[in-house]
């Protein structure tokens, strides 16, 4: 009994330490020295941190806000729309001066935006546009659909150069995730035009899970050893795809014969490496830095009542062998500290 009590107390202490230990957000997020006028606070609420892209984006915001000496507080909804509502309400409770929100999806965010409006706190939606509605907000978006379509179009161009017909595979993300769907649709749209050169023989659901992706690709290659065109809905799946290709002995540089045309989305470090090494043909890159800066700027403008356009488009860009040198600096994956 006493022993138990002891353990209990020590455990409690442990929890407390955890609090204080984790209580301090990473230095980048911390306020960089107080200045004369009241320091602004911005709440950043991400839907998830499950892929490198989101981490990079969060870092981009940390950097951007630190640069402007704005305090940042963060919350991650871990993929739960209702929890996200709760978290933003918490921001409002804390009277932040602005909110950056990566909504779980384009529609579920409406009540959030309304709440922010009600509290007259400017809110910017990051990376995903809201549904048309009365709610006032600005949105910084890179269009999954358009950018994917562009990327795949480029890949198809590469494919046509080879002059023969290609069998294609797409690795689809989590069917419950709006991004995954946007990219899938982009792929389909692009492929539809090119039915002459391309036949889609495998659609592998990955649930954003590397193991499933890897197994899926291996199996697809088993079924169609002659697949020569693969699009991955996210760059973070490339390690799995590569290992699958390797085990099938199909992982070849562009220069080598039997090269499989590879394309992806996000533009992370892996993709960058693969581009440099000449394995990857193209990937659709979202310009995180542009997006972060634009979002923060929009917030400030809204505070000062300046007009801000409903949606700020991140053109994004397809990076490929041809434009690698020139585009690399703006590819977030090329700059991620490893």
């Amino acid at each position, binding site marked *: 009994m006493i022993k*138990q009590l002891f*353990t209990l107390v020590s455990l409690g202490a442990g929890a407390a330490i955890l609090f204080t230990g984790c209580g301090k957000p990473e230095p980048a997020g911390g306020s960089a020295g107080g200045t004369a006028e009241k320091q602004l606070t911005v709440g950043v609420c991400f839907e998830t*941190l*499950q*892929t*490198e892209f*989101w*981490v990079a984006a969060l870092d981009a915001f940390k950097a951007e806000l630190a640069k402007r000496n704005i305090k940042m507080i963060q919350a991650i909804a871990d993929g739960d729309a209702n929890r996200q509502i709760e978290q933003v309400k918490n921001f409002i409770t804390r009277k932040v001066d602005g909110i950056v929100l990566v909504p779980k999806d384009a529609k579920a965010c409406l009540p959030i935006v309304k709440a922010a409006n009600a509290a007259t706190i400017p809110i910017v939606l990051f990376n995903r546009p809201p549904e048309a509605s009365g709610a006032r907000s600005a949105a910084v978006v890179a269009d999954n659909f358009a950018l994917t379509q562009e990327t795949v179009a480029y890949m198809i161009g590469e494919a046509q150069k080879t002059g023969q017909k290609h069998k294609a595979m797409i690795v*689809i993300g989590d*069917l419950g995730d709006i991004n995954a769907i946007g990219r899938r649709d982009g792929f389909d749209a692009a492929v539809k035009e090119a039915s002459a050169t391309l036949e889609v*023989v*495998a*659609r*592998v*659901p990955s649930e*954003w*899970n*590397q*193991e*499933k992706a*890897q*197994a*899926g690709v*291996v*199996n*697809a290659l*088993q*079924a169609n050893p002659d697949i020569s065109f693969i699009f991955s809905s996210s760059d*973070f799946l490339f*390690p*799995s795809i*590569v*290992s699958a290709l*390797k*085990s099938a002995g199909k992982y070849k540089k562009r220069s080598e014969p039997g090269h499989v045309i590879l394309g992806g989305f996000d533009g*992370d470090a*892996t993709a960058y490496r693969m581009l440099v090494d000449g394995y990857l043909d193209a990937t659709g890159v979202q310009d995180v830095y542009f997006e972060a800066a634009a979002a923060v700027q929009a917030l400030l403008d809204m505070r000062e009542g300046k007009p801000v356009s409903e949606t700020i488009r991140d053109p994004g860009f397809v990076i490929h062998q041809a434009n690698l040198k020139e585009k690399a600096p703006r590819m977030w994956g090329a700059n*991620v500290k490893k």
Partner: protein
Amino acid sequence: MKRSPAKPFLWVLNYASVVLFAVVLAVFGSLSPRFLQTGNLVNILVQSSSTAIVAVGMTFVLLTAGVDLSVGAIMFVAAAVAGKLVLGGASLPLALAVILLIGLAGGAINAVFIVRLRIMPFIVTLATLYLGRGLGLWITETRAMNLPGSFLQLGTDRLLGIPLPVLVFAAALFLGQVILSHTPLGRQIYAVGQDLEGARKAGVNPGRVLVLVYLISGLCAALGGILSLAQLGAVSPTFGSNKEFAAIAAAVLGGTSLFGGRGNVFPGAAIGAVLIQSVENGLVILNADPYLYPLITSGIIFLAVLTDSVRNALLAKLSRRKIRVEEAVSAG
């Protein structure tokens, strides 16, 4: 009881999971010739090896009427730390050793809370699931880590023409089954699962048994982690998530009871894991509509468990009659 007329029929029921497995193979085989190619069958084994091994550990736990929800988290933490080490220039063997150690440590933590502090396994491992996931994300800074090729080597290397993962898979199964059916510990595990208090009265030390069981589970989780690392060559923030459910499903598919005391590693857990993987494999090979995957997989699992319980009901009936006959004999 040897003379029971229903014997062949009973055999079919007894090996329901095996039969179902055969059916699945037959169906997919008939739909796509490629499915039954050795290459593909090997793929299935390789791909199911990780889950299967975790399921082996899970079977041990389930046999004691416990559950270990933390296996996925343990995999993640172990892989994350190992990844850091390797990227920090540590040697591969060291990394592997560390993974296994972390697995044991995870198991030990669960064991302490369950045995010493007498908290329900479900809650303890639920908590360690959260702790582990959080810890892992902390270590990886929620970034994906790409590991050097040496890991992938493990996944593709072959010994006597058999891929390493399959060998590890086989070894784990063999070991697990031997421990369960041919060592005192194994039989005591069954006893504890059947009736913990009774076991204590009978002089078994349930604490010791439980501790060992959770250690084994942790170790198997780590081993499973190594195998998936060997196939992925990377650690993503989702590494090992939902592994616990996959493992439990596999074990239960193999006829292991969640109430303890009944089940086995072979064919049980093995068949369970391989069956699920074959279904997903087959679906990809047939290029099925992605939306259908969960529907079909769950359908088949349900079917397997259904046959299993029908079988139990029938067995109960038959064995009741048998008892009567026996007693009539022994009374005569």
